[in-house]
């Protein structure tokens, strides 16, 4: 078997890569395995394995906030993806094809470049006051709006780069044929950039699903918090329920890893563009 440039496989290279893969997989596998262990086995200093679903049962038991938090995270993710797709596509299209007036784009782009550059924590004090004034603290709506702010610059940028790949002649031909701007956008241009929309959707979904800081600071915890904050709140000073923590972590991480396996291409597109956003 030969590589892309026709070279033979080198055993040291493959061995080093195997070690790197192990370093990535072992912590994930260990955490997932502990999700199926009773606390007794986890705190036992010796090796002690069993197969037990009790951690999940107690996490999802009635009266526990975990199911609410899971639902919150789903709603926040869906809301953020929809807003980022709608606003981001429109903005990306305008920036790429419509040549909007600079007095709108310049301040918006300066701010949009600024948001990804500074630590979100530095904006939190101001956001907290703003959400308080709007009555949006402890609400899903507030978390959707703030998650959208953090992801919108990236969404618009990525959509613009996909719209840039669509030839101008296509839109102009549609307009010459008598289509309205709106029709040309929805019927001609938008279907071509579907891969871009998929990349934006998948990547913003991951970012919103994983978001912690905004959820931590804009909610009082408990049933109003997203999943990530729920996981962190399981780390109690007096009684740490390691098994439940691992189970909650698995619930948060496994869907994302499955997504990473099946939607690898879109995630790579998002990470290389989105890294600029961080």
């Amino acid at each position, binding site marked *: *078997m030969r*590589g892309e440039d026709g*070279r033979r*496989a*080198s055993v040291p*290279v*493959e061995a*080093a*890569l*195997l070690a*790197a*893969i192990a370093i*990535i*997989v072992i*912590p994930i596998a260990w955490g997932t395995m502990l999700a199926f262990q009773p606390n007794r086995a*986890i*705190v036992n*200093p010796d*090796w002690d394995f069993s197969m037990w679903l009790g951690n999940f049962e107690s996490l999802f038991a009635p009266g526990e906030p975990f199911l609410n938090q899971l639902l919150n995270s789903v709603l926040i993710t869906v809301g953020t993806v929809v807003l980022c797709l709608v606003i981001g596509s429109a*903005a990306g299209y305008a920036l790429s094809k*419509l040549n*909007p*007036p600079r007095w*709108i*784009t310049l301040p918006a782009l300066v*701010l949009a470049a*600024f948001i990804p550059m*500074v*630590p979100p*924590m*530095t904006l939190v*004090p*101001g*956001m907290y*006051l*703003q959400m308080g004034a709007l009555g949006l603290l402890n609400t899903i709506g507030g978390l959707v709006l703030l998650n*959208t702010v953090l992801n*919108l610059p990236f969404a618009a940028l990525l959509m613009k780069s996909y719209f840039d790949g669509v030839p101008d002649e296509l839109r*102009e031909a549609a*307009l010459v044929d008598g289509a309205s701007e709106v029709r040309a956008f929805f019927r001609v241009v938008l279907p071509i950039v579907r891969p871009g929309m998929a990349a934006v959707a998948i990547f913003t979904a991951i970012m919103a699903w*994983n978001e*912690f800081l905004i959820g*931590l*600071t804009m909610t009082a915890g408990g049933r109003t918090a997203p999943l*990530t*904050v729920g*996981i*962190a709140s399981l780390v109690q000073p007096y009684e740490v329920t390691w098994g439940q923590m*691992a189970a909650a972590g698995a619930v*948060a*991480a496994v869907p994302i*890893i499955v997504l*990473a*396996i099946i939607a*690898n291409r879109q995630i*790579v597109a998002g*990470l*290389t563009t989105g*890294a600029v956003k*961080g």
Partner: protein
Amino acid sequence: MTSAPVAASAAVLKDGRRRRPHGRLTAIVAILPFALFIAFFAAFPLIEVFRLSISRTSIVDGAFVSALSGADNYVRVLADPRAWNSLRVTLVFIVAAVVGTIILGLILALLVNRSVWLLGVARNILIWPAVIAPVVVSLMWLLLFSPTVGGVNKVFRTLGIGQQQWLNTETGALVVAILVDVWHWTPVVFLFLYTALQAISHDIIEAARIDGADERQILRHVILPLLTPAIAAAALIRLVQSVKAFDEIFLLTKGGPNDATMLASLHIRNMFFDRLDFGYAAALSIIVVLTVLVAVALYTIARRRVRGKS
């Protein structure tokens, strides 16, 4: 070759007078939600942070009440050793995390580029850490490094090595925090550099090989110089990213022991939400924002200079 289509499309635009005002309106309608959203939810908090930073603010009957206090908060921050400590910890964390991810990301990119058997598997698995929630990442490492229940100590016990207490020591906790960050974000650097590596033409490498260069010389004199712009870009991305680190440390060490891992972001959160010292938190926020902006600007200028020279 390209001038003809450009001229043609310009002509279409020029005589499309009837369409133009209409197109202008469409452009404004399409960009407006974005502009308004950003303005309202980014500019407003930013102004609020600045206002908090120059005010004395307290909560009276559940509402924030502020009175202007000039530079008081800034003076208090700059006189506080804990603020300086948080900035120092942040700096150490950033430098170590950026250097660590760049070196490992580069090595991984070179390995995957040369790999045959594991190519497909590695390209998929190597991005996993970057998509897992930071909170879950730190949870996973807590389950390994915890002095009481961690998997590392089970291995040490089996091997007959003494139990580690790294998370309970100042240096150990900082090192573990950096390791976790490196594990989490090396994939981003890897992807970036791997993409750049793929863009290098095989002909150049082949030409060097025909000229008698061995693998090491090709790496040193052909591949690395061609990768330098990508490495510089990745370093900037990582710089910005590591200033933002919060989630991982919040769960892993909570800033301890003895503030050894108290990043600026953590210190801001504690001062705002635990101590309710809103002015202090806002002033430190502004100081961090300005430092980041200056650092990014300097880095960009330096990169332009270097590029201009070569």
